[in-house]
């Protein structure tokens, strides 16, 4: 008997995606998802982007999510399809990116029999998702999908996976729409909606009392939404307190503003790290005291009172003990801080922190990002600076791979808006940037999307250039080609006696020809005189472009706080020598 109110599992999935206002899905077909592909065939609200390897789908979904603020969605088959996305799921978990991954599974009655392309998907992905499901009953499917989207995007966002056996994709049931589902609150973990008034009052009082305050802002600010940035800018302008951001916080506050000390951490600015070390009041907004930021813990900002705003309870007191904390959403809390200051007519005019700024300006005089550009070989720092100057007037999104180029991009490209900077921070996944650019370009078809890449990282997901070509996505891959796994080479130089074991990237392809073979465009700059023209040419072409920028092969990324060292033990240039005792200790760290 057929009932017209009943739909197959595959149709329910599509209905639910439509209900969730999903219009783009990244995927790759296979036996266990054929019913879903069949349902995709007969509709037109959902644009399917066929990637070339599932890893590309998950990073594209991440790029899509980061650049749009929406949930990124992907679809993969069972077995190898889903094991190929494990890295990306872990990446999204570490960097709090909301994505939903739909995977096919062998039919229910074959589960546990080592069937063809069977794997324990929920088992494998349990530690690398915020939550996952195996849906064995089609009547639970609608509810599960809606809950998955809610969980992915609520509280601290993250990846959620739904594994659907093939028979469930065929089986029929009623569809339950999003508005008819009542979520069980304990499962959503959205964080508190009540602003902690005492926290706000304490914070304002401490700001007034402090001599050397600093804002330390992380990716949580980004995830709280654009309004969080607006409130942050307001608060910084009102109080004149210096602000430093983590790698993921870049863009939450305009990078060229006078109050910005830039990025902190292992390759952060001298002034930012020293200010963190010497401050008496630290206001952490959505950052997690990551080891790349704190350096040696026992020497991390020893004399400060610490406030921490983070929606994730487990981020509080995990690595660093704080004096005050709140788990309420950042936007709500910052709003309350601003309105508390306004309604109580609190004035910071007498409190210009002039001694503190005087000290910071002394540190700034070190010009920690200074480099010498000669008149032949392109310095990688210079390549990024020029890229910034030549693109800053445009509506630009930047993704990166992982390595020195990523850190140079963070240091020399300035962001003035949130969600414009898309990089793999927590996991440090080489091969992230190009598929992420595909996703960002899908979400922002009229913007300029650039993947700042290293040649080694680019090779890890190079197949996705075909995806960009197929969907006419004019992404730009800007390779700082140093023929080395530069960051590995740098650590070997600094910590392993310059024994460059396996870090030379031999047998590189000709990237220009490679672009052409994919029907993309290749351009190249071999020396400084060709740099600006190459960048301008790259921008002007309305197709995917690979720009092969030959840069100084031996350049190192400074400043650097070696692993195991403290903030004030930063190396500023190749002439700085590391404390040998730290070097031995640091070697064992990552």
């Amino acid at each position, binding site marked *: 008997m057929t009932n017209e109110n009943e739909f197959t599992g595959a149709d329910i999935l599509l209905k639910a995606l439509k209900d969730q206002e999903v219009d783009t899905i990244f995927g790759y077909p296979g036996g266990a998802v054929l019913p879903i592909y069949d349902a995709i065939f007969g509709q037109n609200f959902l644009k399917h982007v066929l990637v070339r390897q599932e890893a590309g789908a998950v990073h594209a979904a991440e790029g899509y999510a980061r650049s749009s603020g929406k949930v990124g969605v992907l679809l993969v088959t069972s077995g190898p399809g889903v094991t190929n996305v494990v890295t990306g799921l872990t990446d999204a978990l570490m960097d709090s990116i909301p994505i939903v991954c739909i995977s096919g599974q062998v039919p229910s009655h074959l589960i546990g029999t080592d069937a063809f392309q069977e794997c324990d998907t929920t088992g494998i992905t*349990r530690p690398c998702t915020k939550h*996952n499901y*195996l849906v064995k009953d089609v009547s639970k499917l609608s509810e599960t999908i809606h809950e998955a989207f809610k969980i992915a995007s609520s509280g601290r966002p993250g990846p959620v996976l739904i594994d659907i056996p093939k028979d469930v994709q065929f089986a029929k049931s009623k569809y339950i729409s999003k508005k008819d589902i009542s979520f069980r609150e*304990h*499962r959503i973990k959205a964080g508190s909606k009540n602003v902690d008034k005492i926290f706000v009052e304490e914070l304002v009082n401490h700001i007034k009392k402090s001599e050397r305050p600093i804002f330390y802002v992380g990716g949580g600010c980004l995830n709280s939404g654009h309004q969080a940035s607006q409130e942050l800018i307001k608060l910084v302008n009102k109080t004149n307190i210096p602000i430093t951001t983590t790698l993921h916080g870049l863009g939450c506050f305009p990078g060229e503003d006078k109050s910005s000390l830039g990025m902190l951490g292992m390759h952060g600015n001298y002034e930012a790290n020293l200010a963190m070390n010497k401050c008496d009041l630290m206001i952490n907004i959505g950052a997690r005291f990551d080891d790349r930021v704190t350096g040696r813990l026992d020497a991390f900002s020893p004399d400060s009172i610490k406030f921490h705003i983070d929606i994730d309870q*487990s981020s509080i007191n*995990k690595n660093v003990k704080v004096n005050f904390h709140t788990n309420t959403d950042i936007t709500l809390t910052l709003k309350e801080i601003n309105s508390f200051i306004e309604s109580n007519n609190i004035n910071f005019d007498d409190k210009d922190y002039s001694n503190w700024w005087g000290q910071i300006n002394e540190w700034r005089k070190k010009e920690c990002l200074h480099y010498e550009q000669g008149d032949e070989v392109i310095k990688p720092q210079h390549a990024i600076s020029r890229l910034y100057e030549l693109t800053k007037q445009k509506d630009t999104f930047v993704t990166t791979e992982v390595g020195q180029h990523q850190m140079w991009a963070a240091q020399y490209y300035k962001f003035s808006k949130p969600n414009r900077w898309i990089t793999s921070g927590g996991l440090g996944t080489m091969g992230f940037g190009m598929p992420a650019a595909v996703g960002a370009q899908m979400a922002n078809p009229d913007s300029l999307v650039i993947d700042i890449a290293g040649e080694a990282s680019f090779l890890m997901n190079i197949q996705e250039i075909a995806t960009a070509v197929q969907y006419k996505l004019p992404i730009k891959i800007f390779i700082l080609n140093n023929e080395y796994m530069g960051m590995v080479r740098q650590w070997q130089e600094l910590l392993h006696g310059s024994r460059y074991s396996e870090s030379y990237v031999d047998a590189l392809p000709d990237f220009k020809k490679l672009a052409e073979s994919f029907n993309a465009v290749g351009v190249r700059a071999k020396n400084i005189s060709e740099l600006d023209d190459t960048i301008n040419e790259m921008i002007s072409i309305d197709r995917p472009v690979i720009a092969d920028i030959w840069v100084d092969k031996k350049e190192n990324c400074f400043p650097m706080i070696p692993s195991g060292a403290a903030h004030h033990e930063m190396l500023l240039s190749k002439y700085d020598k590391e404390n040998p005792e730290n070097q031995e200790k640091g070697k064992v760290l990552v």
Partner: protein
Amino acid sequence: MSSTSVYPTPINTFKQSKRSVLSVIVDNEPGILARIVGLFSGRGYNIEALNVTVVDVKKNLSRITIETLGEEKVISQIIAQLEKLVPVHSATNLAYLSESYEAEICLVKIEFENEEQDQKILNFADIYRSRTVQKRQNVVVYEISGTSERINKFLDDLDTIGGIKVELVRSGPIGLGI
């Protein structure tokens, strides 16, 4: 006033590992135990004992009791991490409740050879008010309950009797706050 040491005394940097009993209420759904156990093994926490059973059939809830070792900071982190798991309703450290009760059940099978051993066993069983489940000629099975510490002591006492063979099973502690 105490005299100053001729050599400086090193500050004791050993972290204080404490035993804690955590009580976790969860939705009874597939994979929940794997999620919890995975959280412990993945983050390097210890599980000393573990107990899981459905406690509310209608609402489909289970209570999981976990005995763990760790310094206070680690225990708070474990609780925060547990509370992030989607099916978890609440995670409580029983030690932080003003009043809580703890019990563990243990079944002990003791094989003995002579009258003297039998007498000693009977004596300890009496002191600890353990219940006889079964007694045959050369073997007795007791049920003893109470805090884990109480059971440990009973077992230690049994140990003082030479020449007997002991086999046992323990439920791990369970606890409830009031």
